[in-house]
């Protein structure tokens, strides 16, 4: 008799939350592996122009980035308000672009060195003179594949 009455309990057993950390860790590892950290902080204003006939820039390991734009307010005192080039974390002159491309190219593995694309992230208010200088430098080091990186949108919005 007493054998059966022992088990009897009035309340429900609580739901075990012991597996919750495992689930969250799983999510955490997923995000840690699929995402890429932002590697350089922008020192220039970088509002890209819009375009709609665009192609996606696949495979981030094959891309070298060049940023162009006006220095942000905190750097404007030092560098003025004319458009500047940013390579990695530094401001640079057009003549530095060639060396930068060669250095970046040397960092990549052998089989990727011939398929690199240069992504030009240029603020829409920049002047073409600076871009032409960069293009000239790129031609000198034979980095001919460029991508004018833009936002997806109506191209006529650029004119305002």
């Amino acid at each position, binding site marked *: 008799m007493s054998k059966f009455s022992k088990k009897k309990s009035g309340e429900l057993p609580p739901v075990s939350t012991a597996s919750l950390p495992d689930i969250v860790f799983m999510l955490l590892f997923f995000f840690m592996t699929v995402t890429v950290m932002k590697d350089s902080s922008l020192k220039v204003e970088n509002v890209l122009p819009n375009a709609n*006939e665009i*192609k*996606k820039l696949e495979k981030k390991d094959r891309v070298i980035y060049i940023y162009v734009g006006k220095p942000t307010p905190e750097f404007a005192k030092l560098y003025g308000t004319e458009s500047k080039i940013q390579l990695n974390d530094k401001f640079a002159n057009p003549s530095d672009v060639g060396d930068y491309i060669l250095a970046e190219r040397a960092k990549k593995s052998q089989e990727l060195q011939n398929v690199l694309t240069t992504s030009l992230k240029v603020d829409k208010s920049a002047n073409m003179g600076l871009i032409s200088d960069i293009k000239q430098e790129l*031609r000198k080091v*034979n980095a001919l594949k460029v991508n*004018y990186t833009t936002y*997806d949108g109506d191209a*006529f919005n650029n004119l305002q």
Partner: protein
Amino acid sequence: MARRAGAPEVNAGSMADIAFLLLIFFLVTTTIETDAGLDRMLPPIEPPDTDVIIKQKNIFQVNINKNGQLLADEELVDLKDLRAKAIAFLDNGGAASGTPDYCSYCKGKRDGSSSDSPAKAIISLKNDRETKYGTYITVQNELVGAYNDLRNRESERLFGRKFTDMEAEYLNPETAQAVKDDLKEKVKRIQDLFPQKLSEAETSSSN
């Protein structure tokens, strides 16, 4: 009451909170977006060995001045009309029927004073040093758009689907290899019908 055997359990209830904190940190600091833009090839720096003589009528000259105004084939053109003008030029097919340049798929006016065939037609883009980058991109976008419109038209006729879709699928790394091989041929064929000949001359510094 006496304790039963076994060490007391560590309370793991706060583990979830710690993990959530880390998760939110990674969610906020990382970016998954892929960039997109206009792909272009720059001309090689060393000039070609042989000078190629190109007939004036096969060149469509686009000039952008520092105020963002356009001069296309010596006429002042509004940016909105540029695409239509470029299409008319590329699709003209001026060469007479029977000549080697004859373009059987062109639907243009077949005007003898404009381009002979899409393979011969060259668009030359010139800009001033003070041209705004935004304007330049808009012009580039319209010219690439002109090529894409024509390629889409031919692709719809030959394969029943858009060229831009086929190209995007071909370039997508997730596409299966068998599909890619099939697409490669089709993409190549359309590209040969309307090869993208967009020359970017060096910037003029007119005052």
